[in-house]
């Protein structure tokens, strides 16, 4: 847990406001309203990607693409080294009198290795970062946020009018409002 991005963790937060939505359109409206009011949204949890949401809350571009590139590069280097070691250094085999050094027959191995490492690497890092990896303890604000509910989490900061925020959430279709104090949720 500690090695993950600490900023994302929901532990050790003194106080948070949590709103639950069932409708994505209302969620988007609520988010716009909150952002318009200048409320800093900690994060939004949805079971599927909701279009336009990341632009409204001003999310940065995902670093997954860069992860994919470096995983691919790793796979490429790994496989090139592997086949070079096996095929040139350790045990050269004469197959149909073909040369053993870099030949077209290496390309499938390198290609597949690159694709394999990219795919698995992306999957691994994606689940790790989202705390969905097996063995990583996840912070679910609501059990149904992976199913059919959407959750907005707002951290209470100095000078924030909590009742205003709660009202905005309520008037924009929140089906349930909770507060999270030291890891314990209570319905408001």
């Amino acid at each position, binding site marked *: 847990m500690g090695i993950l991005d600490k900023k994302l963790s929901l532990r050790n937060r003194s106080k948070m406001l949590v709103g639950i939505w069932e409708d994505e*359109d209302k969620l*988007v409206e609520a988010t716009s309203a909150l952002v318009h009011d200048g409320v800093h949204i900690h994060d939004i949890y949805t079971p599927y*990607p909701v*279009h*336009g949401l*990341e*632009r409204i809350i001003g*999310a*940065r*571009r*995902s670093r997954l*693409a860069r992860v994919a*590139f470096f995983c691919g590069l790793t796979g490429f280097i790994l496989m090139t080294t592997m086949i070079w070691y096996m095929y040139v250094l350790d045990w050269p085999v004469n197959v*149909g009198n*073909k040369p053993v050094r870099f030949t*077209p*027959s290496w*390309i*499938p191995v390198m*290609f597949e290795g690159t694709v394999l490492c990219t795919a698995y690497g992306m999957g691994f890092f994606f689940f790790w970062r989202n705390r969905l990896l097996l063995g990583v303890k996840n912070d679910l604000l609501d059990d149904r946020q992976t199913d059919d509910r959407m959750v907005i989490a707002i951290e209470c900061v100095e000078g924030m009018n909590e009742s205003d925020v709660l009202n905005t959430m309520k008037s924009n279709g929140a089906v349930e409002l909770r507060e999270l104090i030291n890891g314990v949720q209570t319905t408001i």
Partner: protein
Amino acid sequence: MGHGHHIEIKQETFVVPARAKQFSMIFMVVGLILAGIGIAKIDKSAAGHDEHAKVEVKAEGHDSHEAAKGHEEHTAAAAEEHHTEEHGNVPNENFGPRMEYHTIEHPWQTKIWANLLVAGYFFLMISLASMFWITIQYAANAGWSAAIKRIPEAMSTFIPVGFIVLLISVFIAKNDIYHWAHYEHLGLKPGQEGYDKILDGKSGFLNSTMFFVFPIVLVTIWMILGRRLRNLSVQEDNGTKGDITFHNKSIRTSAIFAVIFGFTISFLAWFFIMSVDAHWYSTIFGVYNFITHWVTAITIMALLVAYLKSLGYLKLVSNEHIHDLGKFMFAFTIFWAYIWLSQYLLIWYAQIPEEMYYYQIRFEQYKANFLTNLVMNFCLPFALLLMRSAKRNRYVLGIVGTIMILGHYHDVWFMVFPGVFGPGMQVGLLEIGVFMFFAGLFLIWTLTALTKRGLVPVNHPFIEESAHHDVGV
């Protein structure tokens, strides 16, 4: 989707800008001039004053003597030598006697016709690929592409032009371009000198009747279905909003087109391009040809979208659509390389003489072209389009797209010329001129076709979705 701001769906009418007209005219005229210079510069002395001066062309260049020789040297003297020095090249029993060369009766005219064959085939396949692009959008129920649908529609109107150019060139120069046609023309029986078991075995499929009838029938079917799709699209425009009968009909027509096209597109590649090397075959050749033109068609589409956008048209299209077209270009660049390697690797590994000589002549006599092909069609686009920002940038797409279009044209040229003329061919003024002429024609043809109907399919059921298309941050 429906989030965010409201986007008004308005019809747009395209007018071909005067500069585009001038540009394509200049392209065509310069192309003709260059082609003319190219024709004037061809060494016509090889064209027969007498019997002996005919150009002898070897289909296979795996002989070291041949390696050093240029095309011009394949004159009578070379032909004499050819007969005397060729004993090392005894036909292998396993593969039957192969015809080593055939006499091109009209060498310099054949160069012109072969160029027209390449140009006609290239632009025919591109327009077919754009038609296919529309049909798979329908079959896959894709929403994002609705706003740019008119561009592939306009490109697909070039099908008859490309096909006619192709047919004229093969009709006139068939016997010179294709070994099998020349062989068929000789009409040899088993046991006669020069009898070719392989060509005779293929003659049930590869004969003049099939050669013309099959493609004409296929292209006609594709054209009818394509025309129906375009008509449905216009009817939808003239209909009412929310009426999806035309859309449903389009889906059905698209499914029929896609299935027929998917099964039959290889025939064009087999007949017109693969039969240049009639002794050779590759089972993936149809796919390879398709993918070459498919990626080019998408590239041209991306460039046209960016161009229309820069003129202020296509208000519904945003950078998101251009990004997606860029992704298509990038993805199919990799797929092109994948298919290229699939063909090359198996032949390289198996090392069967019957298959080898296609790459042997191309690798040994045309190394520069061989590498150019890979660099222009894979290495450069792969490296330049890898980044997200590159795919969203019109100028990068313009530069990479131009490289790709030229590269894939060269790819088709490279499939044809070494097979027809043997070693020593070069991309010269004639090739550049012919390409420029047809590129100009294709551009003005497509732009004119765009003016014939509204630029926005306003009643397309997915137009809202397309207008709000967003690939995310």
